[in-house]
């Protein structure tokens, strides 16, 4: 199947053929590495080199100014980080954000996906287009229109509901707004992923189950959902890893982490450490802690999925 599996030239005189010149061996093995080179070079320069620098930076105190030298401080940054109340609070808020997003990335897409199986034809395409559209809206443009709709005096939401809530200026409602707006953005994607997962399940299974007298609910609970579990765990993993990332442009545009820090999640905290308080060492230390934490979560979840998933063999 590969271009490398070219049968070697027939070894007529055995001892002579063993010593293929080194440059010919290199030339023959080189192509795949050459094709990989541009991509690898970019990743090394823009992802892995900075990752290593971030490790180094986390042991220094530096204010990001090229003129002022970075001072080595050992583990001080990590010590300071864990002593800061902001740090723990931002992790707690990120957990709230993740929990708040699960209805948008798991519950609603599954319900919609199950219902959508009974809807066919042109209408189905239209619904799909409508639900998916917010995914394509630029995050900043989405943030702008939601800010307009949530405006306390002139906004659509307050005037339709007849309320006077200042949604983005009160801690509880600001966090709620961030969750709903982020959920609005990702709902279409999750719905599409679930639809693809459902389309991949062989309909013969449920036909067989109903022949055996299973009710619709039983079929869904004991057959469809278990078969859908790889899709669901993929969505769960994405929500865990990316929830804070998805809401970042929104927070950076309309709440700036406020009011009084109520919407400062871990990634906004990193941003603030580096470019708000110009404490590069602290930002790097926090970044590494989050990177390792998420790596661990991803590993555990992937392992769990492999063990618990119910596979269609």
């Amino acid at each position: 199947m590969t271009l490398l599996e070219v049968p070697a030239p027939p070894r007529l005189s055995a001892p002579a053929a063993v010593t293929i010149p080194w440059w010919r061996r290199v030339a023959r093995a080189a192509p795949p590495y050459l094709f990989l080179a541009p991509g690898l070079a970019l990743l090394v320069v823009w992802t892995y080199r900075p990752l290593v620098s971030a490790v180094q930076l986390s042991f220094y105190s530096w204010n990001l100014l090229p003129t002022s030298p970075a001072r080595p401080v050992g583990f001080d940054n990590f010590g300071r980080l864990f002593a800061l109340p902001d740090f723990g609070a931002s992790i707690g808020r990120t957990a709230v954000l993740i929990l708040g997003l699960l209805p948008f990335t798991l519950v609603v897409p599954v319900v919609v996906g199950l219902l959508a199986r009974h809807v066919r034809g042109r209408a189905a395409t239209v619904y799909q287009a409508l639900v998916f559209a917010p995914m394509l809206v630029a995050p900043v443009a989405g943030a702008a229109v939601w800010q307009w709709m949530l405006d306390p005096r002139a906004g659509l939401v307050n005037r339709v509901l007849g309320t006077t809530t200042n949604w983005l200026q009160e801690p509880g409602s600001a966090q709620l707004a961030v969750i709903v707006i982020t959920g609005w953005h990702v709902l279409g994607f999750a719905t599409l992923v679930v639809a693809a997962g459902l389309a991949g399940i062989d309909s013969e299974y449920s036909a067989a189950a109903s022949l055996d007298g299973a009710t619709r609910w039983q079929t869904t609970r004991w057959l469809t959902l278990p078969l859908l579990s790889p899709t669901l765990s993929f969505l769960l993993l994405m929500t865990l890893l990316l929830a804070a990332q998805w809401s970042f442009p929104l927070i950076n545009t309309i709440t700036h982490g406020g009011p009084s820090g109520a919407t400062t999640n871990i990634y906004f905290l990193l941003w603030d450490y580096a470019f708000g308080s110009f404490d590069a060492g602290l930002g790097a230390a926090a970044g590494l802690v989050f990177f390792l934490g998420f790596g661990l979560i991803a590993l555990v979840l992937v392992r769990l999925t492999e063990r618990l998933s119910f596979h269609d063999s």
Partner: protein
Amino acid sequence: MTPELLVEVPGPVHAPSDGAVVLRESRLRAALGHVVLGLLGVACIIPLYWLYATSLRAPENIYSLSPFPWPLSVANYVEAWGAVNLPRLLVNTFVMAAMVALGQLLTGLLAGYAFAAWRFRFQNALYLVFIATWLVPFQVTMVPNYALLNQLGVLNTIAGAIIPNLCTALAVIMLRTHVRSIPQELLEAARMDGRNAWATLWTVVVPNLGPALAALGVLLFINAWNEYFWPALVLQRTNDVLQLALHSFIGPEGTQWGPLMATAGLACLPVLILYLVLQRRIVDGFVRSGLK
């Protein structure tokens, strides 16, 4: 609890009435599906509709709640045109998104071809090097990358927003799958013809991947067009792309909602048009790749 559906037909005597029940049941379910999906679709589209509705109202009607903006007015667009250099922003954003998409497509194609057409030492480890980039968040690498861009002297230029994003694991993974799906006989035949790997890539692989490359290109373009993190960091001083220009209308003395909605509408328009034209292809490709 909904009444249960009997598919098991007990006997010929009951068959007609059971058939009617089954039919009514499935109609009911379809109706329920239409209602729920319809409501959800409308709820999802309201903010987008309100964005364009506001942008088309006359300035004195900006606070109006009427569902249809009437009389239509382009005053907000005119005002936005006066406040920021819209043509320049559109061109800059387009150049940035197109360059990023093309670069990602090219590096992805080369790497995907290498992973699909050869078996070589460290193959799995190298593949992992690509995938693992998904775990490294932008906020961890941003300070060192910012410093490097500063040294290269490309801060506050469009090039600075493009260069760090020229390779993405997504393109490598998808193109590896696509190259694998090309019949091996075709690659073999090219080799028999005495064409080298480079010529095979451009004369056999690329022509066979036309639609897949186009679909992936559109996806990468949309992602790059909507990108916010890097431009926000790199173009802090110039705000030279549409996504960042929105900030010009949000000030301490109040937000100019009309021009803000007009600019936001323009920032979304190219992507929405692409989606309207290519919706079937994008969604179909997605669902089919999920099936495999």
